[in-house]
């Protein structure tokens, strides 16, 4: 019953921009979708007990790949989008083989450095990445000649990508593969003794997280039409982490809930520009103090209580 209600609420929320047909609402909704993808990619790394601070860098790889392939090589958007997913995924898989052996805070630091190095590459290699100015005039998204650059169309595209990403991630973190990942998180030595290769499974999850971040990057690049390196630095990753904390780290829906709440928040406090950061910070503090399991945790607690 509760699940049906939540599903209905989510569907209503997703349909809201179409119903209101308001340009600003579309804009915020698209940003929520993109941020939710980045937060989802971070959620995946948390699922394997690792905090990756390189997720925005993977998003950047997707953004730059998608932008360069469409703009300079005239690849159609769907092909560029696919590349924007596969390139960061492959890089994450290769990197993961080495860095996933490092655990805990060391992994967070290592990925922080790697993420900064990626941003530095975007800055330093003016050809092809455009240096500090980034890339301009990125072609709009279109599929088979159908332009998707209008806000309603791009919002629809974002919803489809978001839905597909959540479907893939749900498939991975639930059911049989979910039992493997949960087992590794709960008792690695035992799970390995039952025949599981911990590194191989963690690498898969890390690769998928790179791919999901890359998808966010592609959407971001084609929606805005320009990208620059600083968008893919540590601040973006930290925001994605906060979304997970606010939405509930243990929940698959956590990243989405966090994005829905946090992306519009700065907009709400816009009139009080001076106090914007302060309000924002205090709201977060209140959330973490009073709801340590995130807002999503409330729903789960309810369900357990009955």
């Amino acid at each position, binding site marked *: 019953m509760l699940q049906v209600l939540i599903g209905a609420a989510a569907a209503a929320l997703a349909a809201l921009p179409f119903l209101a047909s308001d340009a600003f609402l579309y804009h915020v909704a698209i940003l929520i979708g993109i941020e939710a993808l980045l937060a989802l990619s971070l959620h995946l790394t948390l699922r394997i007990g690792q905090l990756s601070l390189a997720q925005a860098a993977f998003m950047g790889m997707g953004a730059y790949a998608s932008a360069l392939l469409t703009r300079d090589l005239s690849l159609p958007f769907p092909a560029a989008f696919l590349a924007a997913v596969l390139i960061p995924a492959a890089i994450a898989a290769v990197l993961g083989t080495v860095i996933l052996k490092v655990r805990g805070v060391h992994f967070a630091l290592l990925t922080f450095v790697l993420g900064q190095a990626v941003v530095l590459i975007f800055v330093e290699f003016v050809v092809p990445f455009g240096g500090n100015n980034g890339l301009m005039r990125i072609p709009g998204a279109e599929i088979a000649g159908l332009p998707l650059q209008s806000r309603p169309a791009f919002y629809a595209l974002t919803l489809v990508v978001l839905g597909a990403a959540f479907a893939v991630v749900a498939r991975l973190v639930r059911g049989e*593969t979910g*039992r493997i990942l949960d087992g590794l998180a*709960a008792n690695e030595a*035992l*799970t390995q*003794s*039952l*025949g*599981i*290769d911990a590194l191989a499974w963690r690498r898969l999850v890390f690769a998928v997280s790179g791919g999901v971040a890359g998808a966010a990057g592609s959407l971001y690049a084609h929606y805005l039409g320009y990208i620059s390196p600083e968008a893919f630095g540590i601040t973006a990753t930290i925001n994605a982490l906060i979304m997970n904390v606010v939405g509930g780290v243990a929940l698959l829906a956590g990243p989405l809930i966090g994005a829905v709440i946090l992306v519009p928040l700065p907009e709400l406090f816009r009139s009080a520009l001076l106090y914007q950061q302060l309000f924002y910070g205090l709201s977060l503090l209140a959330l973490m103090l009073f709801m340590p399991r995130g807002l999503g945790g409330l729903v789960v607690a309810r369900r357990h209580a009955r």
Partner: protein
Amino acid sequence: MSALLSVNELSRSFGGIKAVAGVGLSVDQGEIVGLVGPNGAGKTTLFNLITGTLKPDAGQVVFGGRRLVAGEPGANARLGLARSFQQATTIADLSVRAHLERAAVFPALGRPSFLLRRSAVMAVRERAAATVQEILVFAGLDRVAEESADALPYGLQKILGVAMALATGPKMLLADEPAAGLNGAETLVMEALLRRIRDTRGIALMVIEHDVPLVMRLSDRIVALAHGTVIAEGKPAEVRADRAFIEAYLGGEADFGAASGPEGEAHAA
């Protein structure tokens, strides 16, 4: 006859401590080998080296004619080298049956790429429920199958550890102090289970145990370890009489020869 497991010049240090120093031993098909030695002798470390949980500084492990890869406990488990742990290992909130279900299917899912071997994975999934039921009965866990493993008495948790190892379908089982922390009655149940694993399934066993009478009764052969090296090896009666063993393990005080054996058990229990 070639050994099922053979360990060659295996060594591993932690900092300055030589936990395992040049250990060689072998276990035949269907044999029960007891591994004894005082605290800190390197017994658990030796198990970790054999299963690939730890990488050795030197030496190698050959199992079923194949040289095992160090650092790959999952792969080695899939070759039929199962283990149970010194501390009972359960996953929070999971029933006994759920633990065994995982143990039964995990070997078929060792790496993500295994999902592509659809028919093999399907076959294991289909067999899993029957395998689990059979193991539940075999290990005497059928009455607590639906209970949360955390809530079980410690003795049953240790039995579950052995049962999980069994559910992976091993050729050999390494049991790390299966009777540690168990009361007298539980110890007898464990002993009977270990014996049945060998007798009815032909699975070879290597058993670390501080309960000397128990391990002497159970084992075909004993290997005694002290300070990371093998100090005595042979039939239980031989090792029991071995000076080096008596001194290392018991400080040369006790004479437990008379108290062991099936007759002595009555007193102990």
